[in-house]
């Protein structure tokens, strides 16, 4: 186990290094990406631009610039080019918003996906199963920005059932206000995943139910509930857990950009989108590192959970 963790940590460092480097490289090479031009202002003289370049270190070689940026990211001194505020502080400010969205939505899509998938599998071929299949396909194909805008407009703005966007921290508005603000984002983000998860689980259950050990379980005379729970569902959950861990890591790392934007949550994803639009390299770099951290972290956790769920897999 210790060896596994150490190996994972090394792996994590390598992934983050590679990802950040590639990101930096892209922005370094991108046309119009030269930050000095923008920092110096629209009507700057070449002399002013050069001064800015010197001041910010843009005249240094590529490697030095990359090294400086990485160093500043970890000391918290990284400054945004456009807003000139501290990037790490913005991320720390946005993280609770993103986490609120990710944790809530991930729980919803896991629970609903499994419940609907199981229901569908048990009624395979029946009308209810076919209905759920269609529903799942609709869920999968609906774009978040469209569904989100629709929900926001009709349920939030017109019907007034929910606040139309925004985020209220628990410390300010209390639990209920926070919860009310999160319901729509959670539901919209979860819709896509529920569709996928229920399909995957349904097919898994239908595969597993024909496995020999399920027949053995029935032959033992244990209750059908137990056969389904301890044997069919337990074994069908293994791929779902893997999938869930990876998706959760993605959303946790700010991957639900559209949802954050549509509901104006001002989380990490939102910040990321805004920074990309402005070609603002420091925040982009920092958010990429932030995202990579969570994706790799969850990957490691998934591996541990996977080994716990399936004893045939051993860590090491």
């Amino acid at each position, binding site marked *: 186990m210790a060896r596994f963790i150490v190996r994972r940590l090394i792996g994590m460092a390598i992934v983050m290094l590679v990802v950040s480097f590639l990101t930096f490289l892209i922005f370094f090479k991108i046309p119009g990406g030269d930050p000095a031009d923008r920092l110096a202002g629209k009507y700057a003289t070449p002399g002013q631009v050069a001064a800015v370049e010197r001041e910010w270190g843009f005249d240094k070689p590529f490697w030095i610039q990359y090294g400086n940026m990485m160093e500043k990211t970890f000391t918290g001194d990284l400054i945004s080019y456009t807003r000139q505020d501290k990037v790490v502080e913005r991320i720390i400010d946005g993280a609770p918003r993103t986490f609120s969205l990710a944790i809530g939505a991930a729980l919803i899509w896991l629970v609903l996906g499994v419940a609907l998938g199981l229901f569908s599998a048990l009624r395979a071929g029946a009308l209810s199963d076919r209905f759920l299949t269609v529903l799942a396909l609709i869920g999968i194909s609906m774009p978040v920005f469209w569904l989100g805008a629709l929900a926001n407009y009709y349920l939030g703005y017109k019907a007034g059932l929910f606040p139309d966007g925004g985020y209220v921290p628990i410390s300010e508005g209390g639990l209920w206000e926070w919860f009310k603000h999160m319901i729509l984002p959670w539901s919209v983000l979860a819709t896509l995943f529920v569709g996928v998860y229920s399909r995957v689980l349904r097919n898994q259950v239908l595969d597993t139910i024909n496995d020999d*050990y399920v027949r053995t379980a029935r032959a033992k005379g244990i*209750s059908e509930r137990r056969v389904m729970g301890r044997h069919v569902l337990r074994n069908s959950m293994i791929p779902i857990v893997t999938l869930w861990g990876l998706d959760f890591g993605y959303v946790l790392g700010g991957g639900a950009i559209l949802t954050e934007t549509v509901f104006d949550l001002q989380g990490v994803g939102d910040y990321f989108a805004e920074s990309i639009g402005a070609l603002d390299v420091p925040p982009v770099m920092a958010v990429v590192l932030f995202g990579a951290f969570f994706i790799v972290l969850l990957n490691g956790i998934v591996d541990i959970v996977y080994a716990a769920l399936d*004893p045939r897999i051993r860590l090491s």
Partner: protein
Amino acid sequence: MSTQPLLEVDHLKVDFRTDEGLVHAVDDVSFRLGQSEVLAVVGESGSGKSVTAMTLMGLTRSPNARFEGSARLRGQELITASDDELRKLRGKEIAMIFQDPMTSLNPVHRIGKQIVEQIQAHDDVSDAEARDRVVTLLDRVGIPRSRERIDSYPHEFSGGMRQRVMIAMALSCDPGVLIADEPTTALDVTIQAQILREMRDLRERTGTSIILVTHDLGVVADIADRIAVMYSGRIVETGTLDEIFYDPQHPYTWGLLGSIARIDRPRPHRLPSIPGQPPSLIDRPEGCHFRPRCRHEFEDCPKYPELEGRIGQAPGHDDRCWLPVEEKRDRRVVADGQIGLEAEGATA
């Protein structure tokens, strides 16, 4: 063998609805199983032997299956029993081991837990008690260091050891009837010999009756008391071990006995073989199902053959062939004391 049979199966029929049509998997199967008797149900794939066995366990129940006839275990009807009644019998009164030990145990649970699960489904015992019982069972089926191995996962066992675990599991509630569906087919011969010896010992010690479903006549000769030969969903002949091996009545039985390559006889130039293929279970020939492949077909064969004893046969030795007994004894080929078929050209 006592006079009161443990299990009585009468005119059992199992049909499955499929897209291609109605599959007549089991057709008019009747047999008796006595106390501590080993009945071998022999047949090739598609003969209905496994479906018969699984139907007794209620494992073939599905919306697409249709059942007729009756099967009574100590007088209790199995075919029409409710799912819940049947569940209480399964694993307790009638237990089953399956062909492939590699896939028959759940890979994610410890083997001890899987057996405890069955014990606690039927008997109200504490975890510790159930565990002790499992240790005893594992000892009994020859698993060394049972106290440690009880917490192993199936993948940590070889195929032979897994089959021992399956046997231990099946025996965990002292069932009256043990159904073994090709229990040694997936195992190597030396391991097969170990498992067969285990099963023989168990029968001696516990008095469990065994239904052994197999295609391997060697295994049958090793362990069975009585045999039912199945073909195309029907029992075509049934009798004692010696009756079937030394006085077979049905031409299919002759063919089956004759087409085995044997290590204890001089080898023939060509193996005798039954020509053709078994009929489709959807569209079967009228009367005797073996008719299209039988060399001895005559005008009576399209009539439905009952499974019955004929004049000149020992009681309990029944078959479904229309040929008169003397005719059969004349026609079956006996070479070097071996029952078989005509040896020449049966290939194409």
